[in-house]
């Protein structure tokens, strides 16, 4: 398919979704974190609000229930555990080219 049709379609999709996103952003309170936004919108209905779409100064933070609940160690442990399992599986499969030469785990 011609590239301009592909990127044209993608551009139209993005334009529509970004417009919907901006409407949702303002209609549900403006610059509010998602959990607070959900609670407020579902309890009080739509209430116009503004604020920056991007707030770099806020930084990337861990979700409130984990951060405020003192579960950072558990979160870190789970991430490390899952990463080790995933990477271990990947290395094993890649090195040995899969179990049984990469056949399905159970034949029909």
């Amino acid at each position: 398919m011609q590239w301009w049709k592909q990127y044209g379609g993608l551009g139209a999709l993005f334009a529509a979704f970004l417009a919907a996103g901006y409407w949702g952003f303002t209609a549900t309170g403006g610059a509010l974190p998602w959990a607070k936004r959900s609670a407020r919108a579902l309890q009080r209905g739509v209430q116009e609000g503004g604020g920056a779409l991007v707030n770099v100064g806020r930084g990337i933070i861990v979700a409130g229930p984990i951060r405020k609940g003192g579960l950072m160690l558990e979160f870190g442990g789970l991430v490390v555990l899952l990463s080790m399992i995933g990477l271990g599986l990947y290395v094993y499969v890649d090195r040995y080219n899969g179990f049984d030469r990469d056949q399905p785990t159970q034949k029909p």
Partner: protein
Amino acid sequence: MAHIHLGEGSFPLWAVIVWTLLGLGLISTIIYRIRKGGIETHQIALAGIGAAASFAVFQLNIPVWGGIHMNLTGLVGILAGPLLGALIALVVNIFSAALGHGAVGLLGANTLVNASEAIVAYYMFKTLMGMDWDVFPASTSAATIGLSAGAFLMGAIIVISGVNGSALPRGDLAIAVGGLVGLNLGVAVIEGLLTGFIINFLTSVRPDLVGMVDRDSTEEPAGVTG
């Protein structure tokens, strides 16, 4: 990034039961299909990595659109497939709920939401590649549309269930939920772009991981030749 962030007891009991049963039905069907048809072993490894990445990014609140988190469920669906993608959605939601991010009673609903993202993204990607699209626009569009499917499903689940303690009439609740769904569509663009870049990169270095070539016919890297 669709995810129902309401606390325990937010949904009426009948709704909790219905969404839990539907979630159980979906997972049971997937397990049955996996046991019957089998899965490629390299997909298991991808699923492990996908679960780790999805769980980690699930908990990170990034400072755009007020403060949102991504799911990477579109990426997981495209890489691991619809069956493992849905199981990853379940695993990520269980671990998240165990840490207080998402209610345990809403595990069924949230699994349905996130599994739908992975499933729709996978089939959309396959459809677009079948229409001879390039990898980047196909994967970006597929992930964006997959995430939008999850957003609409999330909205439908909330409106159908109703929210305990909310005095909003159903019509006003639907408008409020529409705003949340709209915001999710904006976020889907960001996550779709990220997914597109990752899939495009993987296709250039390991096309077999994305199903572009047969693993058995993958040639070893030639390396530097004289």
